């Protein structure tokens, strides 16, 4: 096969030519993988070949080694590992050779391919000579080979986890990288590649950062690089500082003063990409300190893992003025540009984080700036003042803020209607929203909203919804938080008199001509949802009227035909919003007996609409409709059975949707809703559902987050159909057993611990449902053979000492369910288990009420089982 020509054709503008070329590449790959990879790597290495085909060859190689989807990635890795060893070493030789190519693109693609191969082979202890030969390259001339090698080391550190590479090699990599970064390196490209490589290598440097001398050296080189004449190097060096601020927060004390000087110079004088990173350093420090202080829970215990060094508090007098200056550097109309991110935005965001970190201390530093600028003729000053004020509303105490807000409120309401500048209005509406978000309903005696100003606030916000789309969007946002502030208000909310007017205005916004091109429509529906969620019984009749309105809107979207693909996308988005809105309404009306019955008159029609919605292809819409149907089933109860014949196939489709796993996850939850609603009436559908759920469990294509809820769903079904579950018992139990074995021990990071605990919880909920489902049945004895393993699982996870309260509650509940259902058949087994003693006692004295409640249940059930 003439690979060069095919690679050329694969980039042709002629669709047919391109398709043919892609087809033949695919065939080649399937029929002869080693030959395929070899000729691609040969193409990549061949200096006589055109740059276009070399680049594409590298890209295809990369895609033959890695993929986004987990299962696909796994397949590719297996195929590479099984490849003929000679072919592999030939390919690798080609790759290493290409690193010295004079052609930049060829080198750059190659360094990524090498990193992918390393990502597969190094964890298998293969290709041990790789790092050595890369390091020997570094000391070579020419500079371009050095640059490519450093880039490769950077990618390699990104691909491979730190525990795969031994400390000796880590040291050598770091030495090479830091040397490449230092001022003595004359070549800009080499220095830039080294700086970017360090960013990825920082995760490997734990040991080196614990050593004062090595750390001092690395920090000095990074700080020097922030002063490089080359802007890209300065930016990359600040990125390293940002990464260091989170990875090595506790090592920063000796350097923080210098870093403050460097960053504040960069923020004030450097080009924007650099200044943004310099600000990000402080935002990142805030993130760290907020986390630490939250963990303290307000009191310093001294034995926490990471102490707080209060860098922000100490830097406050200099940091805040620096950030306030950035606020005045806003760009014309940046609010209207969806993707905009500039120094004023970054500065304001950082100011908000600083407020959350230090609380009250920030107020006296910001208030003079606000007072000075808020009435200035220049819009940028008014906007900056408003933005500064809005930024500090989360953090300081209500006692400190409310007197200020009471003074500012009238001014802000008038600015929102009268300020000649749209950006000032935008920020004002946003700041009002922040006031409502953080200060309504706070336990301070000073109310912000009184009978006197409530009317005015609502009027101004509704008025602003007719303003430009970005101002209207923020006004909707403010209303969202205003409504939220009165959530849980008993019989009557101060918003009740305006309910109808508010809903009407929001519906009007959704019909604005210019609504399609911004987030405005979404914001309007989200606000409508919140207004409904937080409404009181007084306005229930109005919410009921809204059902028909939203149903009509949804109906209209289903009628429109012959849309362009762009229009269809907008249509789907709207359908998603409408289904979401109906879901909120159903949940609201379904939560009270009185409103539920009034709502029932619409159930048939709503269900009819949802079924039609499923005919449209959009994951978001399906998810929203599914969630709404779950709420509907809960509200309707056993009568939901009449919709099952038609709905079932969509339920099955949802369960089969591995690609859009959110849809699958939501559908699994809805199966639970339906089980509880239908109880034994779900039996006719159980075969299909259980088969699909078991299939899903065994699939490695399904996102793992869906699996715990599937187990919980087993429990829901078992509880609903009771002993009829016998049919599935063997299959369900064997799936549960193997999952239980896998989840007893956890070895991994926090994320894995969290996942394993959610898996345990799902497994345990399944056991609970099964035991309770079989209770009082003559078939109880079917469960006896499974009891020893379940008790062993409980003992196992107890011994691991790493379960969270949720798992603890479910686990001890299972012990009770086992005792309750099996009674004296299991009494000796139970008495022998650790769970029935130490674990039970621990739960009985738990501070968590739910754990304690479950434990008391278990204790009772056990004492009965034993006494019988």
């Amino acid at each position: 096969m003439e690979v060069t020509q095919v690679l050329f054709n694969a980039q042709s503008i002629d669709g047919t030519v391109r398709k043919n070329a892609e087809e033949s590449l695919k065939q080649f790959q399937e029929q002869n993988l080693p030959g395929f990879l070899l000729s691609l790597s040969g193409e990549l290495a061949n200096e006589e070949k055109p740059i276009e085909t070399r680049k594409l060859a590298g890209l295809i190689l990369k895609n033959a080694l890695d993929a986004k989807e987990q299962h696909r990635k796994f397949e590719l890795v297996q195929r590479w590992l099984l490849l003929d060893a000679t072919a592999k070493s030939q390919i690798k030789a080609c790759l290493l050779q290409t690193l010295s190519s004079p052609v930049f693109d060829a080198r750059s693609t190659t360094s990524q391919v090498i990193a992918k191969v390393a990502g597969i082979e190094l964890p298998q202890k293969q290709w041990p000579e790789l790092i050595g030969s890369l390091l020997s390259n570094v000391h070579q001339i020419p500079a371009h080979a050095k640059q490519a090698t450093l880039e490769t080391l950077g990618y390699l550190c990104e691909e491979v986890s730190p525990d795969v590479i031994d400390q000796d090699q880590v040291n050598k990599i770091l030495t090479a990288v830091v040397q490449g970064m230092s001022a003595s390196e004359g070549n800009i490209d080499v220095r830039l590649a080294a700086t970017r490589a360090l960013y990825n290598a920082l995760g490997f440097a734990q040991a080196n950062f614990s050593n004062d001398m090595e750390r001092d050296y690395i920090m000095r080189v990074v700080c020097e690089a922030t002063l490089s004449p080359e802007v890209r190097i300065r930016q990359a060096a600040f990125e390293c500082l940002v990464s260091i601020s989170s990875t090595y927060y506790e090592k920063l004390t000796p350097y923080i003063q210098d870093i403050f000087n460097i960053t504040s110079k960069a923020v004030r004088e450097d080009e924007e990409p650099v200044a943004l990173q310099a600000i990000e350093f402080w935002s990142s420090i805030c993130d760290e300190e907020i986390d630490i202080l939250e963990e303290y829970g307000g009191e310093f215990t001294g034995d926490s893992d990471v102490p707080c060094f209060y860098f922000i508090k100490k830097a406050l007098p200099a940091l805040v003025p620096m950030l306030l200056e950035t606020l005045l550097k806003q760009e014309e109309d940046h609010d209207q540009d969806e993707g905009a991110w500039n120094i004023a935005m970054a500065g304001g965001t950082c100011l908000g984080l600083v407020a959350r970190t230090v609380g009250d201390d920030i107020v006296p530093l910001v208030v003079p700036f606000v007072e000075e600028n808020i009435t200035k003729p220049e819009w940028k000053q008014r906007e900056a003042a408003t933005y500064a004020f809005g930024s500090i509303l989360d953090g300081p105490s209500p006692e400190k803020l409310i007197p200020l807000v009471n003074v500012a409120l009238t001014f802000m309401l008038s600015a929102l209607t009268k300020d000649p500048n749209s950006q000032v209005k935008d920020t004002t509406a946003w700041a009002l929203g922040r006031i409502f978000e953080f200060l309504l309903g706070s336990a301070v005696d000073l109310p912000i909203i009184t009978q006197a100003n409530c009317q005015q606030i609502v009027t101004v916000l509704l008025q602003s919804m007719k303003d430009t789309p970005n101002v209207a969007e923020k006004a909707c946002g403010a209303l969202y938080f205003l409504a939220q502030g009165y959530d849980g208000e008993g019989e009557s909310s101060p918003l009740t008199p305006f309910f109808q007017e508010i809903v009407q205005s929001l519906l009007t916004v959704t019909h604005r001509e210019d609504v399609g091109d911004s987030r405005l429509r979404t914001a309007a529906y989200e606000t409508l949802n919140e207004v409904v969620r937080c409404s009181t019984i007084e306005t229930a009749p109005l919410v009921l009227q809204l059902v028909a309105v939203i149903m009509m809107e949804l109906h209209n979207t289903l009628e429109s035909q012959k849309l362009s693909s762009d229009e269809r996308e907008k249509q789907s988005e709207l359908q998603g919003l409408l289904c979401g809105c109906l879901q909120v309404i159903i949940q609201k009306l379904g939560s009270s007996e009185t409103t539920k019955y009034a709502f029932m008159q619409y159930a048939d029609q709503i269900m009819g609409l949802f079924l039609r919605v499923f005919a449209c292809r959009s994951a978001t819409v399906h998810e929203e409709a599914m969630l709404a149907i779950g709420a509907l089933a809960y509200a309707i109860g056993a009568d939901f059975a009449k919709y099952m014949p038609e709905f079932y196939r969509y339920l099955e489709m949802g369960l089969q949707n591995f690609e859009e796993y959110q849809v699958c996850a939501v559908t699994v939850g809805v199966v639970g809703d339906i089980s509880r609603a239908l109880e034994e009436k779900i039996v006719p559908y159980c075969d299909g559902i259980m088969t699909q759920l078991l299939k899903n469990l065994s699939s490695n294509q399904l996102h793992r987050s869906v699996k715990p809820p599937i187990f919980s769903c087993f429990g829901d079904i078992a509880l609903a159909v009771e002993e009829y579950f016998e049919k599935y018992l063997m299959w369900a139990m064997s799936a549960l057993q193997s999952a239980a074995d896998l989840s007893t021990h956890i070895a991994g990071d926090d994320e894995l611990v969290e996942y394993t605990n959610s898996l345990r919880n799902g497994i345990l909920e399944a056991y609970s449902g099964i035991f309770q489902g079989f209770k009082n049945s003559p078939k109880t004895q079917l469960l006896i053979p499974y009891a020893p393993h379940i008790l062993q699982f409980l003992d196992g996870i107890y011994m691991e000492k790493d379960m969270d309260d949720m798992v603890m509650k479910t686990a001890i509940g299972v012990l009770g369910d086992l005792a309750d259902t099996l009674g004296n058949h299991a009494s000796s087994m139970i008495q022998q288990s650790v769970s029935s003693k130490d674990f039970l006692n621990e739960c009985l004295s738990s501070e968590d009420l739910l754990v304690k409640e479950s434990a008391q249940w278990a204790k009772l059930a056990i004492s009965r089982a034993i006494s019988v």
Partner: protein
Amino acid sequence: MAPHDNRRPFKRAAISDQQKRRELSLLRQAQNRRDAQQQARCLASSILSLQSAAPESQPEQSDIELETVPEAEQESEAFSKDLDVRQASKLRGPEVRKWFARQLMLPEWMIDVPDRLAQDWYVFARPAGKRCFVVSSNGTTVSRQRNGSILHHFPSALPAGAKIRDGSGSAQSYCILDCIFHELDQTYYVIDMVCWNGYSLYDCTAEFRFYWLNSKLEESGACNAPSHYHKFRFSAVPVYNCDQSGLHAAYTGVVPYAKDGLLFYNKHALYQTGNTPLALVWKDENCSQFVIDTDGKGEIPSQQQVVLELQDDRKLVTSDDPPVLFGCLDGDIIEKSGLHTGNLLRFAIGDGGLSFVDGKLEKADLIYLGKSNRARAFADSYSKGFQLKSL
């Protein structure tokens, strides 16, 4: 390697409303699953045996109880009985209906005048509305109708009835009130007090309970107008001694609620669950708008109806203890309609009505209509049939 983008959300909420909807759904599903499990754990068998098992396991329970003073033992017995009510208030489904139906004290229909009426009895005008149990505990209040279904779930000024009062009561503080919810003014009229602030009044006389009710309810602030932490107003009803003037006041006096008959309570009676002749109800067109059965639309059916329970020997009985036999059901009907022992069946009373001899039912002209509403938990009492006849 491209520069790293560190942009943060600008003027936007941290989570989208869609994510919020998703999370709220998950929360609701988790709550429903918990309810379903809790229900299963407390199904009749467990809950009833739990009641009888509680005293036996008392020595064991002492590690949970905080107090060890002698009278704590007495209290803990009452506590364990009440605890079930609180647990049961979380239940769902048919079992909970049965369970709750057994917890309320149910008056018999007044078919004759008790002795010593003037001395030993109270009378008051029954508010029209839904009879329910109101349970406050753990910072929330739940009202359950006679069939166990939840009427409201709300914060109240009752002890332990809302989240704010955390300082004021221990975890064991809770209340159980026997109420009628009056739709028109959205008020819970408290007609009896079963537990107050953790203190059981089951074994107290009506005299004491009414006294306690009147003083404590007012004190708690539960009679105040609704507010943020107190969603519904509670109110006591005016209770009179059953002498001439008391009867007159109850019968004709103006009250802030629509009347639905008169209730008579024996002063010395303890709070007894189920039907009791120590509480009586009287209805006529002067003191009740619901003197006879109405259907769902508020119309009076052409024939009056009774609900009876089918026993295994095909006998149809009332909910009284002991049950009163009303008749026998044809084996044919049982087979055709697939009826089982324990089914509640609705009958119309035919033109023949009910015949009584010496105050005992001799014959009833019953026409089978069908199974009763699913929400129904028990048969009518004998005295209902009797009052129907006397109309």
